[in-house]
């Protein structure tokens, strides 16, 4: 607590003596306490520099930590050549699910469409009015919301069974025996399905209390696993 107080005081002092003009112009007693312009970083204050990117716009909390994290991986050259883990962009998530047969315009409570439409905040949509672009890191809230959407979408995806997919015409996700197909899973995850994908999916069905639940779990799981990041 003491440290926080000292830090705050320090920051205020730095602001006060920083680019000095009439240094007391916006912290004088004639101003309303806590009015916008009374704050050291208030819009009416000389020291209203645009918010510094100490935190980064994508949830990185400390530049020093970024450097340390990178150093733990390798040289800057190495770090730059590695793919990062980016969350699916909001519009992309919608496009993928719509193609898989999910009604993204649904307003039925707890439907995938509803969760998607009302989940813009957790899903990291841009807030351009605050000069914040769409978040790219897969934050806990984004992933949790994404998993909710996938779980809700699974039923609709199974019902449609890829019949309306423009990406995967003529493909079935589940065959007439109730087993997942390799092509169907490839369509779901967007890359070539491996035998293990198929094994895991069908294993989930066989271990579930009933086939429908097992299939839903399998679809939601595959989607969540595949689309945790781009």
């Amino acid at each position: 607590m003491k440290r926080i107080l000292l830090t705050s005081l320090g920051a205020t002092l730095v602001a006060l003596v920083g680019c000095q003009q009439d240094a007391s112009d916006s912290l004088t007693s004639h101003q309303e306490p806590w009015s916008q312009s009374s704050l050291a970083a208030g819009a009416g204050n000389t020291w209203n520099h645009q918010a510094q990117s100490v935190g980064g716009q994508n949830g990185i909390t400390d530049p020093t930590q970024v450097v340390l994290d990178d150093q733990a991986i390798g040289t800057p050259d190495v770090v730059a050549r590695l793919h990062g883990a980016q969350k699916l962009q909001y519009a992309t998530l919608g496009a993928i699910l719509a193609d898989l047969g999910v009604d993204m315009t649904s307003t039925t409570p707890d439907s995938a469409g509803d969760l998607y439409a009302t989940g813009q905040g957790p899903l990291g949509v841009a807030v351009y009015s605050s000069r914040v672009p769409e978040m790219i890191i897969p934050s806990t809230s984004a992933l949790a919301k994404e998993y909710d959407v996938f779980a809700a979408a699974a039923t609709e995806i199974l019902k449609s069974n890829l019949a309306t997919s423009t990406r995967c015409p003529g493909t079935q996700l589940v065959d007439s025996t109730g087993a997942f197909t390799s092509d169907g899973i490839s369509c779901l995850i967007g890359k070539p399905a491996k035998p293990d994908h198929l094994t895991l999916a069908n294993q989930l069905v066989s271990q579930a209390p009933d086939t429908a639940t097992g299939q839903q779990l399998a679809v939601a799981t595959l989607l969540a696993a595949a689309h945790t990041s781009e």
Partner: protein
Amino acid sequence: MRRTGLTMLAVALASSAVAVIGCSSGSSSTLGGGTGQNGDNGGGGSGASPAGTATPQPGPGGTPPASESGDGGGADGGNGNAILDARVLDYGEALRTASLKLVGDLPTLAQIQAIASAATPAAQATAYAADIDQMLADPRFTTQMIQYWRDTFKTGSPYSPVAKGSPSYDTAATFAAMVVVDDRPYTDILTASTGTCPTFANGTFTTASCTNGAPTAGVLTDPGIMSQYFEHMAFRRMRFIQETFVCSPFPAEYSATPEPMGQSLYTSPWDFDSIAGGPTAPINFQDTSAVICANCHTTLNHMAPLFGYFDANGKYVAGQMQVQTPVTPAVTSQLSDWLPAGQGFAWRNGTPVTDIPSLAQAIAADPDVATCAVNRIWDWAFSRGDIVNDLATVPTDVTASYVTDFTTGGLKLKAIIREIYTSDDFVRF
């Protein structure tokens, strides 16, 4: 309740599956000893010797084999880093990642199957390169580019209507996307003198010029940008230009001979008194009592007045300053608030300009701007975050060959996007 339970279970299962499937990407042989049928080039298990990466593979599109850990021009410095060496060639994963970024959707099953069924890595590379070309020609690429520029410019209005009286916040991103999609020189984004406020609907650009009365210079005079970055003395607009197009924060210039001053060092190459300051100045930019304001403001103040004529809605009012100097009460800024008499405008020390169009030309000619454009594409492709705000800096070696190709190839950003998305680094995970 049932849904909640299902969600929890799915999340739990997904977490396991993520660990098992997701992170292993191409090396999912950890699950079953995959042998390359899915584009992982027969890679071994995670952490194993990078099977399939010991031998250089043909480059995309049938190009000659590239170096193992870097593209043709950018090796990893020969440090033999185990992490780079352990990456596995995976065109299936690359196709998915590229598709999500370039067209905003997963690849088609036909594309997935073509990669999976290709007999050799070279054949996979060929199929993959063709897919990239197809994506770059896809109308959805335009939409993705608009979104890319919205996020780069940190402005746009895709989800919410614009308030009455405000300008469109989408025209800058739309114009920048149009420059890329139409294969125009990248510098048009900065210097175009007409048609810089287009709209995009139903897959088509409609060219239009901005109507805010400004001497037009690409997006620099876009009303949405000017409105979005409105602030006292136009400094926020300067920061937009510096960080967006040069990829570094202020201070932007450094002297070879910094001098001790106050509590710190004066590092700018400008004369210290080239900016307003002193006890009678409204803002003492020459203050040294804590930080050295002039380290940044010598650069800032030689440009900012040019942008002081745009009001809060991005309208240009010739001859009449629209920004304020933050004294109490705030007053309309005057040129002398930024610069003492005799000082002119400049992009950098030694690069004088006279107006916004000439400033735009100076910016466009700055080699750092070309490098920045390429590095931003690199970071986008590799999901690395914002190059400034997220400290996602790119070492020179990594993109040097792309920068050369960019500058010698007419500054066509789409060509660089293709190069990066088909690079050896991009297709390895």
